[in-house]
């Protein structure tokens, strides 16, 4: 979902219209957008206040401990190992599929995206239930690598499709072997795509809570959750460190991308080309693809099926399952609705009015992507306890957290939907005397509705899988599918957990399928 952001706009596209020159944002729109941006900033600001309320010295004393260092090492180590593993699998599969005569290439391309349909904590449940001894670092690396390599595979596959094949041919004709050609030419061509994907994977690992907790590996998110109630200041401080690491990684990636230049001169000829022969390597290549598919897709499905059968023989708790499903649907729908409503002013503003202020406001709403769910939830819990007690542990606060976390997807959807509808129609309406709110309701909104609704549906599906914020913010007695899976897995009741795992996979399959279909035209930079 993160890949389907608003950047897919292409200048000169038939549907696209550049923002009108006359557009100076209406004060109301600007005001509303600023309000939304302010709301999006709230968790971060309050977290900082809380973390440093006892002064810098106390904060430093709390931070410079062995535990903090251990968490930094653990989190970074996990992110690094996962990213390297993801690069090997993602780039390798993409190259096999795009550049060789691998048998069944289309099928492998589809299968390779399927892990996106398995939430990482469901994958963790699968692995820990099948191999209980495989916990800690090893288990976390396996689960997260298999869950995140599609973030690298998809953009690299697309980049290979677009890359200039002449350079490879030139290299080969100058006597370079296939391996040298791959590393000196092909790899350089797909480097921006691979780096963007690797960034996504690394950020995913840093903010992941569910799978590392199930795997019992101490990363920031796990310890923040463990201390959420026991020690507010410590949890807030660790959250700040985690955010700082995230920002550093984003900044580093942006810098390295800013320097590199990988361009191609001219449009390039689109000549049908022979795919490379694998020869004796055909069998190992197929075996490698099958191994990845087996571990990332078949094993989870078989394992969930196994526990479903075993669990249902012990008695399936139907009413409990139904209640959790209905609750999940209700809070997720509310979260999607609120996210969409909040996204409207910012999205419209960004689509219709260029300039630094609208751009800044839009960027602020993107914070949700870089703030881990556990961090946003933590900030909201503390805020509610101190300043909004009636909201504390009530469902509106949870809905609000969902909206903040998934605001970027909603803003992206609104923005691109509005950008694709011609502003001329709005101008006509205005020239005929309609006041701006009426123009918005009668012209802008109806035209953009399908795109906005698609965005809302995506947010809806994402909310249903959300775990850490739900765990911290849910009202007493409320259980969603994710929290049920979580508690059953924690107490080792894998049979009871299986139905929730199955439902979550089915739900997550929808956006994964949509993303897989888009894979061809994917740009992959976010």
């Amino acid at each position, binding site marked *: 979902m993160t890949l389907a952001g608003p950047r897919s706009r292409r200048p000169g596209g038939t549907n696209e219209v550049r923002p009108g020159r006359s557009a100076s944002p209406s004060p109301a729109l600007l005001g509303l957008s600023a309000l939304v941006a302010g709301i999006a900033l709230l968790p971060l600001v309050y977290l900082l206040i809380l973390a440093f309320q006892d002064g810098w010295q106390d904060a430093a004393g709390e931070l410079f401990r*062995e*535990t903090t260092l*251990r968490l930094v090492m653990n989190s970074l180590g996990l992110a690094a190992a996962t990213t390297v593993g993801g690069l090997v699998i993602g780039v390798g599969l993409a190259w096999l599929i795009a550049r060789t005569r691998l048998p069944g290439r289309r099928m492998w391309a589809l299968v390779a995206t399927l892990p996106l349909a398995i939430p990482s904590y469901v994958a963790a449940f699968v692995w820990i239930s099948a191999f*209980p*001894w495989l916990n800690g670092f090893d288990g976390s690396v396996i689960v997260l690598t298999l869950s995140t390599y599609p973030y690298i595979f998809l953009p690299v596959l697309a980049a290979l499709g677009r890359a200039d094949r002449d350079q490879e041919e030139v290299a080969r004709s100058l006597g370079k072997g296939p391996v040298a050609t791959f590393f000196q030419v092909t790899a350089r061509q797909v480097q921006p795509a691979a780096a963007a994907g690797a960034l996504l994977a690394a950020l995913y690992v840093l903010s992941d809570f569910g799978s590392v907790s199930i795997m*019992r590996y101490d990363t920031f998110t796990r310890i923040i959750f*463990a201390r*959420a*109630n*026991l020690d*507010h200041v410590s949890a807030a401080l660790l959250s700040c460190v985690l955010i700082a690491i995230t920002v550093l990684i984003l900044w580093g990636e942006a810098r390295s991308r800013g320097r590199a230049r990988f361009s191609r001169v001219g449009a390039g000829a689109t000549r049908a080309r022979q795919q490379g022969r694998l020869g004796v390597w055909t069998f190992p290549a197929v075996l490698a693809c099958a191994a990845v598919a087996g571990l990332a897709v078949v094993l989870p499905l078989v394992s969930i099926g196994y526990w479903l059968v075993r669990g249902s023989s012990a008695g399936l708790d139907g009413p409990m399952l139904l*209640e959790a499903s*209905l*609750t999940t*649907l*209700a*809070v997720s*729908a*509310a979260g*999607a*609705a*609120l996210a*969409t*409503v909040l996204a409207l002013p910012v999205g419209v503003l960004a689509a219709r009015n260029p300039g630094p202020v609208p751009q800044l406001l839009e960027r602020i709403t993107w914070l949700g992507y870089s703030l881990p769910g556990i961090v946003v939830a933590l900030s909201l819990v503390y805020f509610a*306890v101190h300043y909004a*007690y009636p909201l*504390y*542990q*009530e*469902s*509106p606060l949870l*809905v609000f957290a969902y909206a903040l976390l998934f605001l970027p997807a909603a803003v992206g959807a609104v923005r691109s939907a509005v950008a694709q509808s011609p502003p001329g129609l709005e101008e006509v309406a205005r020239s005929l005397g309609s006041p701006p709110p009426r123009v918005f309701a009668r012209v802008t*909104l*109806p*035209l953009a*509705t*399908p795109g*906005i*609704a698609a965005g*809302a549906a995506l947010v809806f599906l994402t909310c249903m899988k959300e775990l850490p914020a739900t765990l911290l913010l*849910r*009202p*007493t*007695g*409320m259980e969603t599918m994710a929290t049920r899976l979580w*508690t059953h897995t*924690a*107490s*080792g*009741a894998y049979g009871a957990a299986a139905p929730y795992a199955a439902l979550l996979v089915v739900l997550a399959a929808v956006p994964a399928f949509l993303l897989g279909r888009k894979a061809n035209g994917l740009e992959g930079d976010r």
Partner: protein
Amino acid sequence: MRAFTSGRRGLLVTALPVFALFTAGCGPAADDGGGDDTVTIYSGREEDLVQPIIDRLEEETGLQVEVRYGDTADLAAQLQTEGDRSEGDVYLAQDAGSLGLLVQDGLLAELPSDILDRVPEEYRADSGEWVGLSGRSRVIAYDPEEVDTPPDSVMDLTGDEWEGKVGIAPTNGSFQAFVTALRVIEGDEAAQRWLQDLNDNGVQSYENNRAMLDALDNGEIAVSLNNHYYWYERVKEQGEDAVGSELHYLPDGDAGALVNVSGAGVLAASGNQEEAQQALEFLLGEEAQEYFTQETSEYPLVEGVETMEELPELSELQQPDIDLSDLHSLEESVEMIQEAGLA
């Protein structure tokens, strides 16, 4: 035609959120335990263990019960944060220490003597704010294939012969309570040193008691510090032959033989004092006490209820001479465990 379809979609888009907000408002979240007759229990004991008896409680007493499950220490901290605004009515804890913590903060109400007197003095608060519901002994579980004579004191576990062979569950409330007991018996300094030595000795950390029993069966470790009933639960589930480990109840009042309680208190801020006490009475009744010993293999604390056959008698255990009301300094214990790099 186009305008018509988008108009309909527009309606759908406005109607859906409204509907969603409505259903969310009516969901299970809507009833808050505060003033109405729903008893809200904060349970530091697992749902699997507690929910069946809560269901019976609802049937028998006609009370409406809502349970917030969590970690014992976590929920205590949460109740402290919530203070007198809390919607909780009953706090059900896995150990006496967390209950003592709330007593110190004045968050628990004094219980009437007809509830307190059902339980022997040593298994309730000195000042009458909480009462034990079931007893559980700390034990050493060991792999008889690896260990000929299990140690008679936890203090021995820092020795060379146990390097890399010991399992603990450092984030578990019962382990933390045991550390508090160790501090009370041996002093803070000795306890801190013991934790540090344990870590230096390559102790293995696990999430919970079950994981440690798994690890014993897998040969990952040779001994572990457990609560007794998880072992009996395992034997019940898998049969005696399938369980590789055995239990050793420590002699001579060692800290590792602490008999702690799962207990409960009524929150002072609760608007449902009477209903909350009714819930406690049920949990001290014959049915619930039977349940705790027969189903979860714990010690019943109410006279007249027989202990599960397989368990050694409570009176035979050589537990340390310790007042459960002294176990409240939980925070310091957690800090010491963290300080030693164990959690």
